[in-house]
């Protein structure tokens, strides 16, 4: 029984860890603008995340190396440093977007301008990083994040035309009012939201924090294979809810409140408040994970002591980096730059940076000197290679698409 409970908890945290501001915003926008025609991007992104997440988890458990140890060992100092800088800048942008997202939720609830909330949320995120134990953080927010299941419930309450939703899924054509570049831009944004690099850094570093050994492999795989796809399903549900309610009204999503609108329509204030609790929990957890990932990556690159299971005195530079990251992201979002725009740009730039983080993981997962008999199987290599090629193509296309579509405007 205890084991079942632990497995369930792991799955819930995987779901919570998967869904962050990027998924909420991109699913909401694309559902409202493109109906279900971009579902494939979430499906592809989720499968790739599951595959590479499992690999990173296996490397963390068997070779006892988190992602940025691998990056430095396998890419050398200079390439790894470029990689680190790209990762840190990108994660700062993501962190800013998550902070802004929580602030927008609180603005909706209280009516007080979101900028007032930003410093308070930043302080809360820092306290989570500073004091809260790793397992409490993961479990508490993972479970609260499950409130997002309310989107699935809403779909059943709404007069959903399942046939036409399915038709959209199976006919991924560009809607008449949209152009091809716009369609591709949002496809990249959905892929980027599923594959944000901080997720895999956090997952593997978390594995080291929890001292995974090969004994934990089954549990880790179960979390990946069940948790991440359920997270992807949740993203699809949010997209579908937007397609059902927002698309006919031709609403262009500019605020997190609009993403929650379908739930309010279906389930009234109670549903709305559950959705908002889910938003806040998922984004707050993502913000903390993002700040921690910045600390993890820098600490691992330089070989410092890092991690939440050490007292701050024992890992001072790790905590300093996390603190500076939270302050920098807060300052950025306080410039009153639109958090939704920051989110969209961050996931697309994230898509551009994905191969940097994922490629070394793939190589090491094939290294018998590290992994012994637990190297990748042939089929997972074949699949991983296909996804890697796709990621590289996406990465090359991402930045031109940002300019060409004016970041999806």
């Amino acid at each position, binding site marked *: 029984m205890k084991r079942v409970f632990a497995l369930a908890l792991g799955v819930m945290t995987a779901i919570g860890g998967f869904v962050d501001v990027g998924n909420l915003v991109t699913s909401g926008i694309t559902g409202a603008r493109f109906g279900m025609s971009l579902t494939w991007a979430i499906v592809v992104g989720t499968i790739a995340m599951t595959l590479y997440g499992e690999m990173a988890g296996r490397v963390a458990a068997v*070779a*006892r190396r988190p992602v940025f*140890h691998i990056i*430095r*060992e396998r890419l*050398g*100092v*200079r390439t*790894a*440093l470029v990689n680190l800088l790209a990762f840190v800048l990108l994660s700062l942008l993501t962190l800013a977007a998550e902070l802004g997202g929580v602030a927008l939720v609180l603005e909706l609830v209280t009516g007080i301008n979101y900028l007032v909330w930003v410093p308070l949320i930043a302080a809360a995120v820092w306290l989570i990083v*500073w*004091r809260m134990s790793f397992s409490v953080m993961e479990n508490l927010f993972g479970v609260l994040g499950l409130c997002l299941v309310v989107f699935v419930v809403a779909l059943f309450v709404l007069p959903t035309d399942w046939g036409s939703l399915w038709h959209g899924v199976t006919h991924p054509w560009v809607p008449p009012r949209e152009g091809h570049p716009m369609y591709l831009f949002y496809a990249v944004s959905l892929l980027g939201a599923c594959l944000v690099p901080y997720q895999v850094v956090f997952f593997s570093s978390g594995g080291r924090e929890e001292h995974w050994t090969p004994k934990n492999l089954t549990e880790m795989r179960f979390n990946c294979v069940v948790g991440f796809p359920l997270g992807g399903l949740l993203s699809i549900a949010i997209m579908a809810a937007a397609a059902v309610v927002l698309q006919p009204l031709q609403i262009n999503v500019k605020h997190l409140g609009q993403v929650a609108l379908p739930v309010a329509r279906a389930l009234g204030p109670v549903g709305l408040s559950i959705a908002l609790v889910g938003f806040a929990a998922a984004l707050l957890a993502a913000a903390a994970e993002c700040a921690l990932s910045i600390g993890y990556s820098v600490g691992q690159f*330089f*070989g*410092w*002591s*890092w991690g939440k299971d050490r*007292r*701050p*005195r024992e890992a*001072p*530079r790790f*905590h*300093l980096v996390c603190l500076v990251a939270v302050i920098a992201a807060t300052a950025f979002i306080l410039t009153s730059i639109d958090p939704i725009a920051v989110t969209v740009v961050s996931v697309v730039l994230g898509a551009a940076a994905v191969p940097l983080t994922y490629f070394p993981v793939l190589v090491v997962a094939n290294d018998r*000197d*590290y992994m012994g008999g637990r190297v990748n199987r042939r089929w997972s290599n074949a699949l991983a290679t296909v996804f890697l090629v796709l990621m590289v193509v996406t990465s090359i296309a991402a930045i031109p698409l940002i300019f060409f579509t004016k970041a999806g405007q």
Partner: protein
Amino acid sequence: MDAGKRFSADEMLLDRQIFDADDQPLGKVDDLELTLPDGGGPPVLTAILCGPTALGPRIGGRIGQWWAAVGRRLRPSDEPYPNRIPLDQVGKVDSTRLTLTVSRDVLDADRMRDWTRDHIIGRIPGA
């Protein structure tokens, strides 16, 4: 140091995580020290080098110089030569791990950590 009969720098040493005798991390193998023997012949590996003053030259360019300068400030008497861990303090080295035979507290090789702890993090309540 015990690394078997033959090994290559890339395969076993450079950029590896160093763990001390208590399993605590103590930086990376940022560089290697080779000494030419007095009697001639090939250079002998005498120490592993770590910390910013060792890493800076490997990064190269402005960033590398700046990082090395940060490290030099933290060294006693502005010493530019990096922290060295002599080979007799290095234990077993294989393709998975590099472990020292001493505790990191004995080595005094990580002044940057101590400085950050004493001047910044240690002053925040709850540290």
